[in-house]
């Protein structure tokens, strides 16, 4: 007994001061990339060619969110569209005439640093900024000159409901356990998720929403949709990790669905491979209008 008290005494308080104070992250941490395309030589495509996951494009590649399916499970009955056609609807490619500049789609970016290393002009720089969550997929595209728009809060009705209390059911749908463990650590003393009124619960019936990790493997599709349907509405959907947004490093594998984007109405996208727990926490707090 005495030793237990002693061990607790030595441990002291470890909870992060965030959001009052920003956490100190490793100087090698790769957060939100910043592009200075004014330095780009004409016709240079080095970053595009080196990116292992084709996250960089020189087209103005503006994804728009599709209308969410009315009931996720009724999807099977509808006329089946080809995977390519669905993808084209989610990411219509719009070419704007004039000089082409690089755009990084954080939904596809794996934050591997290859482009920053390869760029001869220092146009790309991964900053220490962990605030990378967005409400819409098009907000995930980092473009020249414009600043990254932080995730806004939910609309009035849901914000009122969930502002101070949100219960989430986590569904891992083909993820590699990296996003899973980074969500899990939010429950530890340092991040201490419950202090914000956000709780991870065991049953979808107790939940206000689902948090999805993984590219949605075909083998998990039905379980994911059933879990979503079991959550009473109104509900929120949070996609954590580039897999859940675009399929991540497994994009276009026949056994997966390239994320949950064309399956469920996603309210918050947290990119990263895996995202830093702070990115997930920051995104959630912004979604609830707490920041």
């Amino acid at each position, binding site marked *: 007994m005495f*030793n*237990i008290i*002693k*061990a*607790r005494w*030595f*441990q002291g308080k470890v909870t992060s001061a965030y959001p009052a104070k920003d956490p100190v*992250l*490793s100087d*090698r*941490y790769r957060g939100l990339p910043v592009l200075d395309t004014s330095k780009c030589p004409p016709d240079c495509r080095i970053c595009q060619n*080196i990116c*292992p*996951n084709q996250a960089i494009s020189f087209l103005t590649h503006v994804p728009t969110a599709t209308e969410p399916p009315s009931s996720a499970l009724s999807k*099977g009955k509808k006329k*089946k569209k080809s*995977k390519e056609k669905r993808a084209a609807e989610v990411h219509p490619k719009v070419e704007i005439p004039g000089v082409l500049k690089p755009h990084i789609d954080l939904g596809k970016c*794996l*934050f*591997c*640093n290859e482009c920053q290393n390869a760029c001869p002009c220092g146009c790309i720089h991964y900053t220490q900024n962990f605030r990378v969550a967005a409400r819409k997929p098009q907000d995930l595209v980092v473009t020249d000159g414009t600043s990254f728009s932080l995730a806004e809060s939910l609309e009035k009705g849901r914000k009122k409901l969930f502002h101070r209390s949100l219960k989430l059911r986590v*569904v*891992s*749908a*083909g*993820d*590699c*356990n*990296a*996003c*899973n*463990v*980074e*969500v899990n*650590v939010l*429950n*530890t*003393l*340092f991040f201490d998720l419950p202090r914000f009124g956000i709780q*991870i619960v*065991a*049953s979808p019936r107790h939940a206000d929403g689902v948090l999805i990790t*993984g*590219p949605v*493997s*075909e*083998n*998990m*599709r039905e*379980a994911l949709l059933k879990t979503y349907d079991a959550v009473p509405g109104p509900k929120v959907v949070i996609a954590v990790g580039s897999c859940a947004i675009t399929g991540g*490093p*497994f994009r276009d*594998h*026949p*056994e*997966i*669905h390239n994320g949950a984007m064309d399956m469920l109405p996603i309210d918050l996208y947290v990119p990263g*491979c*895996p995202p*830093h727990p702070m990115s997930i926490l920051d995104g959630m707090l912004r979604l609830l209008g707490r920041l």
Partner: protein
Amino acid sequence: MKPIPELKNAQAVDLEDIPVFNIEQFKQQILSHVQANCRVSVLFGIPGPNVRLYCILADDAQHLLLPFATDVGQEYPSLTPECPQVHLFEREIWEQCNVTPIGHPWLKPVRFPRKAGNTSKTKPMIGITNYFQVQGEEVHEVGVGPVHAGVIEPGHFRFQCHGENVYHLEISLGYQHRGIEKKLIGGPYPRTLLQMEAVAGDTSIGHGLAYCQILETLANLEVSARSHTIRAIALELERLANHTGDLGALAGDVAFLPTSAACGALRGDYLNISAVLCGSRLGRGLIKPGGVYFDLDAQRIQEMRKRLDKAFAGTKRTSEILFDAPSVLSRFENTGRLAASTAVEIGLVGSAARACGLKRDIRQDHPIGWFIGQNIPIALCESGDVLARARMRWLEIRNSVALIQTQLNQLPEGNITAPKITHLAGNKLVASLSEGWRGEICHVAITNSEGTFAHYKIVDPSFHNWFGLALALRGQAIFDFPLCNKSFNLSYCGFDL
């Protein structure tokens, strides 16, 4: 008949030098070697009109890997009845190559591979198989999953119970299947390394290393001693973080909250040391073929050392109170016991095997990189129960911290980068092993004449060990399942690929 080549870890062999036995000789080779204390590291088939099976045995005592092959038609006599450790490999061959091992007692799908958008009701449908059933008065079945109550990966478990007593547990996985191996054919591709780091995201370094060792052999790349040391540091950091997390999870399952709470935070401290090294808490983007992406300077070494000392002091305090508490010991002791003889039979690897008294560790048995010529302390326990597996975690934490301290002190000078790979040697087979925190990770690559992958096989330690969990639960109370499960803490995605 050609002799069986004797290979070191990650040594290439010409495909034509691998003997192709007939099935009877093939079987005898496996059985006689297993009798002589070899293990089946991997047994796989290459799909096609004529299926060729490759087996790679690990001779731990001689530090050798022994590859040989056989050609089979539509069927062959199963090896499982005489050599249980290949049971899952044979099911995999049946699923992937459409070859039936006749006489396999347990022939069921492994991963239920299915393409997205396939709406047909034809098999395999995930989770639908012929489950083993115990019949009798008051015997009942409990089904759990795929979606579990915690933040954990999906898998389906079926318990055959009598009251609270479990007669048998059947584990059916495949929910995380992403089709990794199939997509590697024709590679390596630019994103292959990123996929390897995500085979099992908590073992990025282990799988990344196994893959890079293959490329380095095939491209004949020299890795500097400095890179080797940094890789070894990262490998041990991965072990530290996960073992600490496991101790916390085990404590949580027996409601011993002081350790459960402290280990959650301490695990983060170890992850953050990885972040100091490479920016990623899980070691993403550190390893590359030929070297590492990030170097260490004196200041960074100092920072890592400081953090390591602090985290270890905390881990030591919190482990001591865990193993001192009678309430914990009474739950850990004799729970989920696995006999050493069973562990040998089913080919258990990693710290779960060492908890049964089997001295199996790739760092010592098949050393590569920094581990060559080092005397690695291997912790062992005898009892094979949850207590042994928990204690293994603590003993290995202690050893890993000492290893990292040595490595940080003796970081050799040198370059950390290597020239870019332009060409891989053709018509070769390479088997590469690394000791991840769960145990032996085995990658095998076969190249075609153009020097691209004709076949790539990944074996996560979980592939060997899931059956160990099923056996450990026999005769246990069903409420001890979470405890037994955490004591193994196996990977679902590493198994499902």
